[in-house]
Every structure is written in C-alpha cells, then in structure tokens.
C-alpha cells in the first residue's frame, strides 16, 4: 500500500491530533496521522489528567493559559458528542520550604502579569480549600482556581473526531520505520503498512520523539523518563483542587467522577522507555499520601500504571522547524505537560506549516536554544 499526503504527523496523542485538527480548519486536509498503536495510547492517555496555568516561565504560562481557555469551550468548538469533562477545581501548590515560598511568590508575580489569576495563600486558607490536608507539612501555598481536571482520552478523541470529519486520515497500529531524505528534503515516510509520500513531517511522537529524530540524524537533547500513577476506588466529592508538592514529589487530584489519582517521578529511573509498574512506587506513594492527605490513605488502590515524560534540559517544549531538513517540524519535549499545552501546540505548529505569524511567539522554544545555551529553566515540574 502506498499513500501520499501534504503533511504526515507522527504520533496520535493530544499534540498530533490537535495539530491535525488545526491544519484541517486552515484548509490543509490531505494529512495522515500515524501512530504505532491507538489514539492517545502513549503519554497523553497515561497522564495525570491535570491542567494548570501556574508555571514558572513566561512561555509555559502563556501556552498553558491559552490552552486552558480553549479547553473551557472544547466541547462546543470541537462539536464533541461526548464530554471532555473539564472541571476547574484549581491547583494548590504546597510550599514546604522558605525557598519554595519565595519561588512561588516570584511565579505568582509573573503569572499575574500575564493575566493568570493565581495567588499566595496561608496555611489556614490552604486548609479551608482542602480540609483534609496535613497542615504541619507546609509553610504556605499558591492557588489558582482556573486550573483543573480534564479527561485525556475524551479530549484527544474530541480532536480526533473533529479532524476526521474534516478529512484527516488516521493510520493507527502503524509503525514508522524510517524517513527518507533526499538533498535535505523529505521524500517519504516508511511504515510497516506501506510508504507515505510527503514533503512535510511533524514529529509529535511524545516519549519516542528521539527515536524519530534518530531516523533523520537530528540530535535533540531529550530523554524519556518513566512516571508512575495510581488510582483509588471512587468516593463522594471531597477534594476540589489538585494538590501538588515539588519537594515531596507528589500530585494528587480527585477525578470529578470520584476516584483519586496520584503520581510522581523518580530521578533515578532507567531511561529505557519502559512503562511497567513498580512495587517501590506503590510503597513510596502510600507513605507520602498518608503524610500529606491522611484520610485519602484509607482508600483502596484499584490500578497503577506508568507513562513517559519527554524531558528537555529546561523543561519547556521544543517547537518548530529544524535547520538541516526542509519540512521537518518538532512538537516534542513537553517534560510532562504536553496534554496541558495540546490546544496551543496545534495552533502554533499549524500556523508555522501554513506560513502564518504564530498566535504566540515561540521563537524562544526552537531547537537552536540549546546550541546558544541561554536557557530559562522551568522550576515547577513534578
């Protein structure tokens, strides 16, 4: 089987589906999205389902803010026949050290300057927002009501269906084996289901972004890190916001349908793309949650799973063309927040491909920044 397309997008997670949809509404509909498994089978479908505006760099703040504003109206804009289940219960960021207090104060100042309604709260106020919080572990917190929960499967499905209606073709269970380049131009994408003739490729392969770049000998400074999550049995709604602590390496949110989701990473993880579950995670998470949100520890764990964070040195994504190959675009390296940025990723990459001035200037997020070395480090990742 042989195909041809104006654009081939590798990866059918939130980024790939959003890019496809945004290209299609611009009239570029001869697109093929390829994924080695099914829609949202990778990092998107394994993520913690939280979205927040509370970031520490200007770029991350802007991308998150505009993406969340899109999510507020996603059901209507994407004409979705289900519900992406967006719930703005906020994010409560716990500060457990003086250093975190001053970091959060700095972040809140930046966020407010960009129109993000975050604020510092006292221990007492934090306890009012989340009554079952152990007040002995924190010195203060930051809070933003606009942050919240969003179903990753259904949101990606909404983009997928909207793109499909506009004529985008999806090749799932199709693995990319190579990308043929001729005179610095893309000729075709080789898959196990046949070749796709094209001159434009978007790498939106999430945890596998480096493998795709290796096929065209482009070196990107990313690695994929296993992060693990567990979910409990459902109970009545008692916790509005996602509770996060960077120092305690924890995020924990109650899904609007009742179960608690909690997860964390581990710096000592082997970087071999494994997404198996470990016993150590279960034990460490149980101890942490018993300390931070004691009553939540009375719930039963129903399932645990893992996914990949595609990490960059400054924990900000890499967007845009590469210099070496015409028509090769990167939408990679989200460092654990690709789902939150999905709407803007789609808008920006579609604008770059169609030659329109980007809605948000992301020139700071090109691959070149690592060569030039002037990185602005995102301090707020868990």
């Amino acid at each position, binding site marked *: 089987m042989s195909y041809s397309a104006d654009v081939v997008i590798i990866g059918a997670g939130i980024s790939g589906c959003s890019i496809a949809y945004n290209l299609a509404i611009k009239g570029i509909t001869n697109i093929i999205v390829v994924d080695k498994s099914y829609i949202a089978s990778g990092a998107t479908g394994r993520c913690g389902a939280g979205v927040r505006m509370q970031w520490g760099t200007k770029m991350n703040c802007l991308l998150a803010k505009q993406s969340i504003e899109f999510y507020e109206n996603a059901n209507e804009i994407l004409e979705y026949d289900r519900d992406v289940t967006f719930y703005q219960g906020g994010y409560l960021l716990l500060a457990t050290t003086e250093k975190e207090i001053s970091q959060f104060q700095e972040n809140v100042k930046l966020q407010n300057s960009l129109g993000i309604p975050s604020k510092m709260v006292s221990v007492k106020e934090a306890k009012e927002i989340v009554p079952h919080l152990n007040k002995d572990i924190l010195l203060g917190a930051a809070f933003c009501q606009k942050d919240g929960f969003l179903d990753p499967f259904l949101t990606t499905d909404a983009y997928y269906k909207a793109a499909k209606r506009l004529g985008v073709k999806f090749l799932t269970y199709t693995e990319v084996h190579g990308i043929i380049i001729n005179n610095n131009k893309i000729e075709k994408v080789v898959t196990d289901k046949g070749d796709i003739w094209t001159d434009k490729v978007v790498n939106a392969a999430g945890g596998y972004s480096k493998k795709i770049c290796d096929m065209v000998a482009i070196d990107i400074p990313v690695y994929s890190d296993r992060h693990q999550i567990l979910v409990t049995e459902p109970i009545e709604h008692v916790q509005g916001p996602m509770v996060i602590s960077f120092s305690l390496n924890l995020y924990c949110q109650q899904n609007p349908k009742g179960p608690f989701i909690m997860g964390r990473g581990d710096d000592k993880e082997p970087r071999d793309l494994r997404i198996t579950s470990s016993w150590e995670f279960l034990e460490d998470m149980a*101890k942490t949650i018993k300390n931070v949100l004691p009553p939540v520890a*009375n719930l039963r764990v129903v399932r645990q799973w893992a996914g990949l964070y595609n990490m960059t040195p400054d924990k900000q994504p890499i967007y845009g063309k590469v210099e070496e190959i015409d028509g090769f675009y990167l939408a990679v390296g989200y460092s654990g927040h690709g789902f939150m940025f999905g709407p803007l990723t789609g808008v920006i990459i579609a604008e770059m491909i169609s030659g329109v001035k980007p809605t948000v200037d992301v020139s700071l997020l090109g691959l070149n920044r690592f060569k030039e070395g002037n990185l602005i480090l995102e301090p707020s990742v868990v």
Partner: protein
Amino acid sequence: MSINDAMVCRCSDVSLKELRDLINEGYHTFEEIKRITRIGMGPCQGKTCGNIVLRELSMATGKDFNELNMQSNRPPVVGVKLSLIAEEAGRDEL
C-alpha cells in the same frame, strides 16, 4: 427492558447499547473501548465485562475470539488500602 439495556460493566455503568454503538463507530479493540467508556477500569479490572466485550467485538468484526486481546493487566490484583501498604512499607524502618 430490551437486551440493549443490559449492563456490560457494573463498575462504570456501561450498557450493551453503548458498547455496540462504539464498536459500530469503529472502536475495535478492548483498549480503545476502555478509554472512551472506562469499561474494565473499575475494581473488577475487567473480570466481569472482559469476555462480554471480546465476544461483541468478535461478532462485529468476524475475528476469532482468541485473536482478540484483553486489556493490559494492572496491579494490584485486588484493591488494597493505601494505609496498609504504607504501614507494611514502613515496617523495616522501625
């Protein structure tokens, strides 16, 4: 009551009609159906609904039941209280 109202998944309240509609829409694996409906994500981990989903898929696609995959098994096998795990994990530290 028609057969379509029968509950396939008691953990996540999914009816036979919802399941059949999704299969007709083109969701042809357990994993895909699970992600849209949360079928198999509850406390039973697919032990109740699993065979029914695969049988429906087999009938709709013509594929042999044995060629179809069940969802990934996720630990733990049965629900365990986090406080018990924490207690057990801390035993060596005492």
